[in-house]
């Protein structure tokens, strides 16, 4: 290894090269085996991940700078237009929210009547996406919230329109999340119109989801909104997931072929919200407090 003759074209073999590569191959296979079976290597991943963090920040800097530049050089005219639009939108939202408050009160009353436990309020925190498609083999992204902010494995990720995915690996300052469009991802949902429960599976395509387990005579049609049912345990219930696009009933098959389009714009998100469906006792994020549906 140590040699100052590295530039000379000495035909001598590098000492013990074959042995070294053999040892490394065995170590790699062992690592992969352990990594695939158990989560014993989380600590290793986290510490190496922390070492890579500065590189991520540097890589992310130009993108951040560009958006900052875009924001700070918008013309006054554009800003005023934007402001007007936002004011109108706020008015609309407020009006809706008023109705919502009344509905929530009514809901609580009815639930009390039914002797059901009042639903917990969800806590959210905005996270920024640091890099998308970190890994070409699956649909995942890296966000700038890690275990020191209270993120945990399996945590739900939503954007303004609907569910984006879930955290699969928390680092100290960053986490990796899997999108619902990943072909390894499945999510229990229900049809908002009639409460029909089913499962949404990712296809590997960013704008298409599959519903493989809908029976032929089920009451489902194009345009139906699918919301999380909360039955999987990972996701809080009531968040929009997708809109049914096509329903093809196949008489010869037990299940109909149903596809849906994700409600969230999975390919374009820059900010996502992490959801704590149970109030955190010790580590409450201070951003916002949005009630569950």
């Amino acid at each position, binding site marked *: 290894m140590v040699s100052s003759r590295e530039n000379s074209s000495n035909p001598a073999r590098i000492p013990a090269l074959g042995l070294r590569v053999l040892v490394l191959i065995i170590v790699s296979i062992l690592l992969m085996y352990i990594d695939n079976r158990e989560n014993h290597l989380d600590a290793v991943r986290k510490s190496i991940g922390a070492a*890579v963090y500065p*590189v991520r920040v540097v890589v992310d800097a130009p993108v951040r700078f560009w958006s900052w530049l875009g924001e700070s050089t918008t013309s006054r005219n554009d800003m005023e237009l934007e402001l007007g639009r936002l004011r109108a939108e706020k008015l609309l939202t407020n009006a809706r929210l008023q109705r919502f408050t009344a509905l929530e009160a009514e809901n609580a009353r009815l639930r009390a009547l039914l002797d059901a436990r009042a639903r917990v309020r969800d806590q959210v925190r905005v996270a920024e996406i640091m890099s998308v498609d*970190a890994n070409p083999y699956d649909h995942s992204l890296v966000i700038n919230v890690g275990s020191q902010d209270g993120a945990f494995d399996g945590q739900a990720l939503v954007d303004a329109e609907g569910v984006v995915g879930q955290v699969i690996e928390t680092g100290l300052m960053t986490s990796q999340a899997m999108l619902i469009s990943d072909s390894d991802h499945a999510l229990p949902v229900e049809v908002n119109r009639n409460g029909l429960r089913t499962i949404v599976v990712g296809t590997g395509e960013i704008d298409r989801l599959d519903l493989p387990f809908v029976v032929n005579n089920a009451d489902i049609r194009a345009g139906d909104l699918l919301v999380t049912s909360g039955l999987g345990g990972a996701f809080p219930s009531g968040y929009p997931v997708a809109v049914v696009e096509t329903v093809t009933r196949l008489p010869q098959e037990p299940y109909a072929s149903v596809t849906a389009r994700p409600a969230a714009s999975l390919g374009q998100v820059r900010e996502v919200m992490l959801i704590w469906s149970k109030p955190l006792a010790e580590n409450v994020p201070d951003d916002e407090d949005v009630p569950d549906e």
Partner: protein
Amino acid sequence: MNRDRSSRRLPVIMTLILGLMLTIMPLPDAAGPFRPDWLALLIIFWTMQLPRTWSVGTAWVIGIILDVSQGTLLGQHALALAIIAFTTVRFHLLMRVFPQLQLTATVFAMLALYQFLLFWINGVASVDAPAVAYWGPVITGTLVWPILYIFLSGVRYRTRSGG
């Protein structure tokens, strides 16, 4: 002597960090599968040129970093890169005298081997991926190799005369 060696290593480390940046840089969805394997190309170049300083050990460590930053199976890229480095060291004298066209063809074969190893490990671990994620980087990697070669040769000779 020590200072001399570290000043010779620094540029290589800089190119490797640059390669890591290019690897984790966000790209549009359509271009994602065609991102060249920058680190594999860098490993091929540096182990070919300086096989006593940069060989399988370095490649393995870089592979582990790559695994962590991409969230793949820990050891997957490490194994593939170590084998690429081993092959390169074995044939480095031959590769140094190859004309550029033949060298590019060799690099194509190496990148194909690299992607095949990743594909094979994915298969064993039952990770599903579209085929373009495998052959895309091989093609773009081969295309950028001649340019990268000129750039890295520049880096190498500058540091040798400077160091």
